[in-house]
Structures are given as C-alpha cells and as structure tokens.
C-alpha cells in the first residue's frame, strides 16, 4: 500500500459533504471557547456533554485510523508520514484541550464539592462521571478525616459543613473575583453603585459577578 492509496481510502471514508466539515470545525471552536471560559471564570460551568461526546467519537476514529495505517509504515520516509503527522498533531492539540478542560473542572469540583452538592442547580452542571467522582472523593476524604482524628472529637464538632459562627466550612466560588473581558456589544453594568459603560471591543477588568449574565448571553467574552 502506498501513500496515494492511503489518501484515496481515507478520502473515500469521509465525503458526506461540506456541512459535516463545517460542523466539525465549529465543534473545535466551541471546545476552545468552553475551555477558555472554564479556566477563566471562578464558578463551575455546565458540562458540555454533547459537544465532548461528538468530539470523543471523532478522536476515537482518528486513533483507529492511525493505528490501521501506521502498522503498514515500516519505512522512515517522511513523505509517507506527513498525513499521519498532521492528524497526530491535531489530535494532540484537541486531546490537550479536553484534558485541560476536564482537569480544570475536577479542580473546581474538588474545591467546591460541598457547595455543589447542596444545590440541584449546581449538581446539574456535572457529567455523570464527574458526579460519581465527586461523591466518592468526598467519601474518601471523610474516611480519612474520621480515621485520623475526627472520630475522637466530641460529636458536636464532627460536622464538616457548618456555615455559622465564624468562617463557613463550605467553600463557594468567589463570584466577585475580577476577570478580563472583552465586550462584543454595548451594555451598562453596575459595580458598587458605579455604572460602567461597556463599548464594543472594549477590554475591561471587572468582577465576574457584574458580567456573569452577559457572559452567558455572549455579549461579553471572558479572556
């Protein structure tokens, strides 16, 4: 099998039309977007289930394709490898983004688990896999605390989710943390009784809470 054969076979395997191509490119753009947002905002955002599922299927296909073709490649000629190099490079990038996206979410889930599980709205942001992870991780932590010292404390001190009398034991995302944003439309937001006029393409540093809704509608993009 030579390089041209691989190409032909490969092209034949995917020709459902332009729309499908557009969709794929659009999906990768959306993934980048979700990734940047998740890394930038203080709170956990809803898991992009369908998007990630679609991309995972494509990744699996690509990996199969590489496996299938690379077995034939015993020579070190670069010409032959080029296409696979391109495919692998892109794969590497997309895998990195999903990895970083997922790990960023896990960090937030670990930090805010008690807060997340206290509200249906927050819990709904998790994938099934993430939810199972959160519950089990919390269980393991409690087991550790208990076996290490907690079981020997007076009963009244054994809770780990008290919110009154001093610093709350439940960590919540700090929505007042500042973020960098770019406005894509004109809007007015209010911070501490001060009105801020957002002009199109203006770049601002402002507390997340003030622009949270606009980030959702897309009038403001976090950077």
């Amino acid at each position, binding site marked *: 099998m030579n*390089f041209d054969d691989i*190409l032909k076979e490969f*092209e034949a*395997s*995917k020709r459902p039309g332009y729309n*499908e*191509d557009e969709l*794929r*490119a659009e*999906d*990768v*753009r959306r993934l980048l977007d979700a990734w*940047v947002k998740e890394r930038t905002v203080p709170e956990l955002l809803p898991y992009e289930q369908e998007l990630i599922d679609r*991309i995972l299927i*494509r990744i699996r296909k*690509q*990996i199969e*394709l590489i496996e299938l073709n690379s077995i034939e490649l015993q020579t070190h000629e670069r*010409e032959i490898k*080029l*296409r696979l*190099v*391109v*495919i692998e*490079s*892109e794969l590497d*990038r*997309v895998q990195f*983004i999903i990895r970083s996206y997922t790990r960023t979410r896990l960090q937030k889930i670990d930090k805010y688990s*008690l807060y997340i599980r206290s509200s249906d709205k927050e819990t709904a942001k998790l994938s099934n896999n993430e939810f199972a992870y959160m519950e089990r991780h*919390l269980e393991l932590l*409690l087991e550790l605390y*208990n076996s290490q010292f*907690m079981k020997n404390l007076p*009963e*009244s*001190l*054994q*809770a*780990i*989710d*008290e919110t*009154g*009398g001093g610093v709350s034991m439940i960590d919540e995302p700090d929505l*007042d*943390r*500042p973020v*960098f944003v770019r406005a894509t439309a004109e809007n007015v937001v209010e*911070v*501490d009784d*001060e009105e*801020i006029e957002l002009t199109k*393409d203006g*770049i*601002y*540093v*402002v*507390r997340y809470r*003030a622009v949270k809704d606009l980030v959702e509608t897309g009038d403001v993009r976090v*950077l």
Partner: protein
Amino acid sequence: MSSDLSRYRTVSRTQAGGREPICGRSMMCSGGRCDFSSGTSRRTGLVSTYCLGDKKSRGEQIPLWLATLLKKQEKCNIVVPEWLSVEYLRVRYDEEIKYPSKFSNLPWHWLPIAKKLLDYASDDFIDPPHEIRSLLQDLREVRLVKARKGIRELNHVYIQLDGLSLMEINEMRPFILEVMDQLRKMNDSLKVKAEEETPRQAAAQMDRDDESDDDIYQKE
C-alpha cells in the same frame, strides 16, 4: 513496550518537560494563509476539517499551527499577512508615540503570529525579517511602558485596557488580577460590616454547637 496504543500512551506521556511557556494561555487557532508548493497534501480528515489545496500555488486559509507544521516539512509557503510589513509596523509605532494614552490597533494575536512566522517562515517575508523583528520589539516595548503606566489607575471597581492584545494581557494578568482582587476584598469588607448579621445572632450560632443536625456528613 506494549503495542496497545492507549496503554502505551499513558505510560510514555507521563513525563513531559520543557514546553513553551505561554503565560497560562495558548493561542490554539488563528488563520494564516498558505500556498502549497507541492501537491502531496490534500484534504485531510481531522477532528475538525481543513481543506488543503490540491493544486500548486492555490491559496488556502488554514490554522497557523497547521501552516507552520507543513512549512517545517517544506510542503508550503505561507502568505505573510499584510500587517507584518515594515511600512505597516512603522505607522503603528508612530501612532504609539503620538498618542501616549492609547494603544494602536494591532491584531488580537499579533505577538504569537509574528513570532511563529518569523521562526518558521522567515523566507516568506517580503521585507527583511530582521527589520520586522526589531520593529516588533520596539512596538512591544513602547506598549509595555504604556500598559505599566496604566496600572497606576488600578482600583476596586474596574479598569479599561482597550487595544491591548491577548498575549500582552497574559503578561500583565497575574499582577492586575491579584492587585484588583486585594483592593476589592478590602473594599468589600466595608459592606460586610454594613449588612452583617447582628452580633447576637452570631453568638446564638456559637451556642447552638450541640445541635448541628440535618447534617449528612456527620459520622456515627
């Protein structure tokens, strides 16, 4: 070593060092135009799809990462964007000097695009690459001075930094966010006082110690 792909990967990729530091963010996609000098690369099925030119010298828009990859393999020439010319950059530099409190209008990703193209496609530049490089350096410096002057204006409400590009934002990001966060924390502490629960409620809460009920995580 195992031939099982997924397992092999997990083992072999656990340790990776010496990557390009991109200040926490990386630029993952940005268009560059690309001419193919050889017909070997064609339509490539990727996780997303890019159509690579079949014919010689046909221009195609492809992402920068792909363009530099092909360029490294000597499979294409890159059409360097217009703004990467001595003339354009000189005008911008003059503007930076003329308006000390405004950033001139440069592409959102001007630094990494310029860097990638100078690194991997310097032979595709029309103007001498070293001249472009030094102009870029001048621009970068004059803008950095402005940005650093701007931080005098930091306060707890907001600041506006129109015209700053993403990489320049990344460079200042940790500093600006941390200072603003501290400022707003101090300022917000005034609000806490204003709306605080009355001291007696707090005291009452302390005394309720013994009845921490409805608590799923209380262990036997």
